[in-house]
């Protein structure tokens, strides 16, 4: 009788306890989740995402999207990924890691991928002359990039 009356409590309270425990273990103890952050990107050799550094977009910066398991990043860099070289690439010891470069698939609809012409870069130094490439032109840019790196 008492069981029927408190049926919901008898089912839900243990489930809540299990869920809290497992969640605590997964996120706080084991760090078993993915963290995504912006990695360094060289627009001469790589297809980079571009982002404005200020509201008026007077300055821009380039980045890749890196996803790594939190526990791995923590072991390599501590709690902060800033200025941590190991956080910028996938190491053999990383269990789940990916670096995403800008491409038509990974870019947002209004986002343009950014590359620099190698010759211009050589003449003016990094970032002097930029060529903004629309998503639609991305395929030809990638071919050009491959030729440059070869």
């Amino acid at each position, binding site marked *: 009788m008492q069981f*029927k*009356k408190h*049926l*919901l409590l008898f*089912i*839900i309270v243990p*489930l*809540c306890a*299990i*869920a*809290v425990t*497992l*969640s*605590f*273990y*997964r*996120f*706080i103890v084991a*760090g078993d*989740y*993915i*963290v*995504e*952050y*912006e990695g360094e990107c060289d627009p001469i050799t790589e297809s980079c995402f571009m982002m404005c550094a200020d509201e008026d977009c007077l300055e821009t910066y380039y980045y890749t999207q890196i*996803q790594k398991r*939190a526990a791995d*990043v*923590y072991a390599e860099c501590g*709690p*902060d*990924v*800033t200025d941590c070289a190991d956080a910028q690439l996938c190491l053999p010891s990383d269990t789940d890691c990916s670096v995403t470069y800008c491409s038509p698939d990974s870019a*947002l609809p209004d986002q343009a991928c950014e590359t620099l012409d190698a010759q211009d870069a050589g003449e003016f130094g990094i970032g002097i002359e930029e060529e903004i490439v629309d998503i639609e032109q991305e395929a030809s840019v990638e071919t050009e990039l491959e030729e440059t790196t070869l």
Partner: protein
Amino acid sequence: MICHLFETPLYFFYVPDLPVLLYYSHVPAIVIAIIMGFFVLSSDKRALLNQLLFGLCISFSIWSLSTLVLWTNTHSDILLFTWSFLGPAAAFISILAIYFTYVFLQKRDVGVKLKLIFAALLAPILILAPTVHTLGGLNLVNCDAFGFEGIMNTFYYPALGALAIVWVLALLIHHYRKAPQGSRSQIILMGTGIEIFLFSFFTASFLGTYLTTAGFLPDSEIESYGYFGMIVFVVYMGILIVRFKTFHANLIAAQALIVALIVLIASQFTFVRTTTNIVLISITLLLTTTAGFVLIRSVKREIKQREEIEKLAKDLEKANKQQIILIHFITHQIKGFVTKSRNIFSMIREGEFGIVPDTMKPMVEEGFKSDTKGVNTIQEILNAANIKSGKVTYNKESFDLKALIDETAQELKANADAKGLILKIDTGSAPLMYPGDKGQLVNALKNLIDNSIKYTPKGEIRIALSQEGSLIRFSVEDDGVGITKEDMTHLFTEGGHGANSTKINVESTGFGLYIVKNIVEAHNGKVWAESEGEGKGSRFVVELPV
């Protein structure tokens, strides 16, 4: 891991440059929900309705506090651990809202089957809370997990919210249609409050998540508007508490509302910056506090008066019950004495004590008649008392109603003849079988015919019986004194004398028609009176379903 682009909060929750609406929407809503939850629970810990409202308020507070943590904190592990329980907290809000509505409307707990359905709806979101189906990771740049939410967060709990809105609405409509007039306003109040809360909460929350994930909004600030739904809900619950004493609470309801209002106004200090605004809010706060103090005092006075009236009403009811018991006892005793006296007169009348002298005969006859009337009057009072206390049982069996009416009418014909009245009986020629309590129905029919005879000084009385489809109709029509509109309103009530009835019939107890009504209704029938007014005769109709 920390979101390195964001500022670490002060005292765990405070970040100066967050959207201004955030603290204004979260803090009062959380405080009000917690106050309401604990106050309702403390009013009556054992009442299921109170426990459910407490659960609802606490689930909402957990959700709101969690979102505040998500807005202000920068540690990925804390953020994800907290974020993983947003779905379960919202699911609890949905299910508890449905459960609360059921108990509020039905005034009892739900069945095992429904509890299992609730558990089945909650279980997936709890089981999958620690998995990637709820949350997979965190974007350290935006410091959010919108891009990593699994199906439970993107689909399941918003769907549960939508289900709760529809389910609660359906329950409200269903019960509103069946509810008596008195409880409809309670249903409207509770229903409006809970629907506004659910709709604003889930819509704002869904839009916040959806628009942010889709990239239409930079953050989920829009979600903050949903929290005002809780304040509206609390206000509605407060009205229910004060007006209808729902949740068995009284004065604290007014106090809680005032405290909530003060918290709401005071929380504006968290975002105002200009001196003018600070002064205006201070004045508003001062006025609200003063007005609140006055309001609480007047509510306190009103509640005290109401409690005194309720106490008086209870005392009166108790005294009334004791009086009924006493009257029952006295009438029983008197009935015994009068019956004994009538039997003695009867025996003298029959000559069992020898030949009665002629000079004594009229006195003996008068004594016998007077005692017979006395016994009948007392019996009528006792019958009414028994009907009122539910002591009467009805033994129904099939009998010929036509024969019964003919027999009763013949029995009373002598009274009509004595007054020079014409008694016309039109009950048809065929027997009319009816399943009912013969003894009780005789009382009712006799009462109606006898009434007509008593209240008709001259003219005729027409008794009719007929069957139309599945209805048997019995009527007694007379050319008597008639019934005024005013008398018509309390004709079938307990002790309901007409204004002039005691002038014509001094022995009227006022219980006759009350007894008739109860007997007819016990047979699922209807009885009513028709009259065009004073001096225009009357017609009493009884309809019995076959």
